[in-house]
């Protein structure tokens, strides 16, 4: 009992510590062969030294998406900072299709970023904007500009201003330390939101991006908590006998699907977050777990071993019917649907190990998209272009990301311990 109290206290003491940094860096592991050539010219800064290289952040963002191949700076003979200075012939000669130029200047309470996006072949300006950013918001400003450029060219909303939640772990067995973090989608600005000597897993963002539901063993048993990311305020919402796991928010943010084994074996339940009322969705002697909602909220997918090994099933609220979705291989688990509901991302056991795969629900065809071998916890970006997942590098857990079509990938290694259980936030702006 005393040990339990100590653990509880230390968890509470460290709860709001934002000092502990666990920033992730990014290594591009594979560039897409279909990437569009673009040049992001270094932004002028009026001779000032700025805390962030805005053009570099934009360039890294665009490259990571797999949609763009930024021109290296040392290949830029000309460095215009406004659209009027652009000599298109030079850039055409470099096979660059788009060009981004801009300036950053100090403003009353922060910075002003001016940027222009030029279509090189059409010799025209596609976009031009002046953006103000607070004194600590230069990176956010660069992410905002990246979003605008990405959408103007691809027609797809950019997801560079989103965040990721993830879990860190160090040690083994009885001597472990766990942390729950949120960071920008590029791994910067990490902030610890929970620390514990007991396991933390399955973080899930609420649809408004303000709350995280997760599983914590801080009472030496699993329980589901909901925490406001901004304030740290939190509540325990499920602590039944047995497993309390795999929380998943409904698209309207009012309900949580979860796995409970209080009635004998792991089954899927839905909790009304306001009233805490429970509705049981599955009821059989097999394992049913890892629920996720369809974007329209009309169905739930989940993992079940009712046919022997784990496979993905879909329960439709309207009909009350359950259908099996996956048939390729003997292990398909922890499915997540794309924002358009047409693709299913999951963990698939192939001949080479556990990998992230995409199954198109129309054709039923399953394609492995990750290149690593111990992959789990896929989480889809809110614009559906990338999937972040947990993998291994040596004996360490790291995060990896792969484009939805499998063509581009990158890794986010951490300097400290294992990083796992990534959860990509919804759009936050």
């Amino acid at each position: 009992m005393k040990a339990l109290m100590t653990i509880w206290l230390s968890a509470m003491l460290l709860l709001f510590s934002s000092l502990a940094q666990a920033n992730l860096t990014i290594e591009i592991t594979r560039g897409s062969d279909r990437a569009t050539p673009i040049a992001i010219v270094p932004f002028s800064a009026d001779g000032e030294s700025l805390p962030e290289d805005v053009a570099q952040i934009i360039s890294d963002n665009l490259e990571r998406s797999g949609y763009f191949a930024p021109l290296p700076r040392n290949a830029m003979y000309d460095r215009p900072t406004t659209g009027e200075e652009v000599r298109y012939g030079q850039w055409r000669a470099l096979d660059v299709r788009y060009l981004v130029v801009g300036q950053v200047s100090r403003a009353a309470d922060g910075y002003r970023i001016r940027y222009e996006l030029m279509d090189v072949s059409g010799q025209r300006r596609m976009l031009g904007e002046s953006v103000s950013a607070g004194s600590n918001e230069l990176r956010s400003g660069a992410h905002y500009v990246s979003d605008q450029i990405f959408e103007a060219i691809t027609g797809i909303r950019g997801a560079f201003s989103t965040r990721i939640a993830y879990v860190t772990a160090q040690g083994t067995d009885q001597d472990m330390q766990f942390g729950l973090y949120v960071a920008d989608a590029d791994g910067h600005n990490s902030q610890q939101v929970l620390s514990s000597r007991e396991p933390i897993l399955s973080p899930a963002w609420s649809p408004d991006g303000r709350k995280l539901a997760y599983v914590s063993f801080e009472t030496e048993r699993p329980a589901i908590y909901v925490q406001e990311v901004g304030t740290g305020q939190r509540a325990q919402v499920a602590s039944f006998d047995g497993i309390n796991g795999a929380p998943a928010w409904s698209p309207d943010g009012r309900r949580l699907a979860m796995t409970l084994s209080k009635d004998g074996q792991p089954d899927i339940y839905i909790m009304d977050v306001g009233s805490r009322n429970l509705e049981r969705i599955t009821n059989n002697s097999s394992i049913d777990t890892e629920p996720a909602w369809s974007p329209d909220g009309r169905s739930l997918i989940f993992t079940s071993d009712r046919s022997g090994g784990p496979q993905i099933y879909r329960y439709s609220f309207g009909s009350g019917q359950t259908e099996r979705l996956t048939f390729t291989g003997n292990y398909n688990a922890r499915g997540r649907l794309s924002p358009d509901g047409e693709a299913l991302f999951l963990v698939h056991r192939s001949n080479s190990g556990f990998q992230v795969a995409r199954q198109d629900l129309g054709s039923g065809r399953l394609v492995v998209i990750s290149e690593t071998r111990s992959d789990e916890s896929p989480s889809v970006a809110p614009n559906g272009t990338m999937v972040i997942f947990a993998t291994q590098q040596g004996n360490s857990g790291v995060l990896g990301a792969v484009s939805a079509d499998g063509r581009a990938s990158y890794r986010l290694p951490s300097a400290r311990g294992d990083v796992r259980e990534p959860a990509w936030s919804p759009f936050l702006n």
Partner: protein
Amino acid sequence: MQFKSHARTLAIALSLALIAGCSSTGGSRDGSMDGTRADGGVGTGTAGAGQVSGTGVSGDRAGQQADGRIPDVRTIYFDFDRDTIRPEFESVLVAHARYLRSNGNARVVLQGHTDERGTREYNMALGERRANSVKRFLEVQGVSPSQLQVVSYGEERLAVRGNSEDAHAQNRRVVFAY
């Protein structure tokens, strides 16, 4: 690799049992002496009569403990994707059952674990299956369900890190936490 690990575990179990056997003068039959004491209390008290019950399977050395002491072997291991109790660990379970029957106030948490392969929440469910399998075994042996609690840790508390078969085998376990 897996066999090696089993063999080693068995060897440890047997040697612990031998140590216990050598020094086991402790404990009385009704367990009134040291019933709630944790490990480390070896060889105190006076010899009680009939402390070895007649289950008498050869090699059942882990079971030859005084009823008043928590059995020394507190971890049993499982095959990949299995929740069945391996024959070599039945004696360990029998010893815990005997201890728990004799000490009605004793409580144990059966902590179920898996290796790190596969998804975390699915492994949480597999870990619970293993712990429940041990729970059922103990209940059949006459242990009161009120003495037993199951907590699955899935793959969250690996005993050994690494991708080798040997590491995986040592992670697939149920731990008796008194």
